[in-house]
């Protein structure tokens, strides 16, 4: 009800004072059973794409990386180090190097 009212109020240029008593009337909650979408997208193919697909997609979707800005090799190395040391991604040294190279090649600066 609140949601339906707000756009109209904004259109009129008024400020609505919500009825605070309304919120206090909730007495029970309803169980939820919902599907949360995810993504099956893989990284664009190229040198190192197997390493980044195999090591990174278990924790986050590819768009996490693809939406990042272009960064220096040092910055990408720091990102990969953080995933391994802070977030415990089990990445082998060889794969870590391949991932950094992939990121620098596809999303590097200069």
């Amino acid at each position, binding site marked *: *009800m*609140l*949601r339906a009212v*707000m*756009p109209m*109020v*904004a259109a009129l*240029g008024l*400020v*609505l*004072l*919500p009825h*605070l008593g*309304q*919120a*206090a*009337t*909730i*007495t*029970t*909650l*309803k*169980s*939820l*059973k*919902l*599907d*949360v*979408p*995810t*993504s*099956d*997208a*893989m990284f664009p193919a190229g040198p190192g794409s197997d390493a980044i*697909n*195999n090591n990174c*997609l*278990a*924790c*986050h*979707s590819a*768009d*996490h990386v*693809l*939406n*990042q*800005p*272009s*960064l220096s090799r040092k*910055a990408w190395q*720091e*990102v990969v180090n953080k995933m391994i040391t*802070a*977030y*415990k*991604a*089990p990445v082998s040294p060889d794969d870590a190097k391949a991932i950094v190279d992939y990121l620098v090649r596809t*999303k590097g*600066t200069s």
Partner: protein
Amino acid sequence: MRDHDVQPSVLTRRRVLGGMGVASLALMSAPASAQETVDLHVPGGPGTRMITTSYPQKGRMILQRSSPPWLETPFDVFDKGVFTPNDQHYVSWHWANFPGDIDVDSFRLTVRGQVNQTLSLSLKDILQGLPRIDIAAVNQCAGNSRIYAVPRVAGAQWADGSMSNAIWTGVRLKDVLDRAGVKAGGIQVRFGGLDEPVMAGAPKFLKSLTIDHARDGEVMIAFAMNGEQLPLLNGFPLRLVVPGWCGVYWVKMLNDIEVLDQPDANYWTATGYRVPDTPHNSVKPGETGFKMVPVTRNAPRSFITNIRDGDGVPVGTPASARGIAFGGDCGVARVDLSIDGGKSWQPTRLGADQGTYGFRQWQTQFTLPASGAHTLMVRCTNTRNEAQPDFRIWNPAGYLYNTIETTHVVAA
């Protein structure tokens, strides 16, 4: 204000990942279809994002990350009122492992640690057995506006929409702690939810507050937003609300409260979410030698919501400007508008005060004196007389940006 160009789209609904490996991921294929996108207009990397309507209980959202979800509130929502509709309240999760299936009868909130009596509270205990309060408060990610950092930095590339305002209904954390009885040695309170790391050994997402903050009578355990139960993705059935503080403290799907007798050493409290201990938490890129401190409170911010970058404005006749502001961890004292790039400022009229920690509307009239390019700026000063800075805040992780916003317009 940034221009958000919108074009037409669709995403597909998928089962929750829930720790699936890469092999099973590869079995699901992505159907391509015409997709509505938004252009966030940033240099140095992708500025285009899909608009999604595929997430449960959520309307049109900017898709910043599919999993774990980062869903940003489209900026036009902020022009429609001070309270963000629940179905467009932004969404941010650290770990992909959180349940989509929550049974309200079996759910329990545990209160343990340095307490006289460990509690296991049902939702009925919380909704029907404790006094309830309402607080309007902005939930803002510490990284809101990170995409505008110059130079760009890694992290969630939020534009200005990882903030949302709601009336939260719940019980005081203080009352719950008092029911358990905090022992004399309790110095911090740590909060955990139903979300779990995907990788073994990775740090569970936990955040802590000092015992005094936890008992201030404002920190609350919320079971409703804007009069309805919380959407799943905003933390159903319970989330911590820490008015005036960054959203990272607002632990979702809260099911564990632990009173500690020593400082919390977990990664998210002791290591993550750090900013330079400098004025406005700002440093020069490449600068070193500063101390790092945790992000805590929100800083004052204000936005023009009815005029976008690049808009045309009639010359020589009064035009309306309006928007929203919030004081951070206190109220809004004033919002000023500049039509000459910050050389001079004029006061605006504030809308009704609907809560110290919530958005406050402002509006005014202005007249651009000559045709051509003009720079509009809007500045909030909070009730502690702290104003938004006019220089560009930067820190390595892109946290707590609250520089005065600029909107370029053309008078004709």
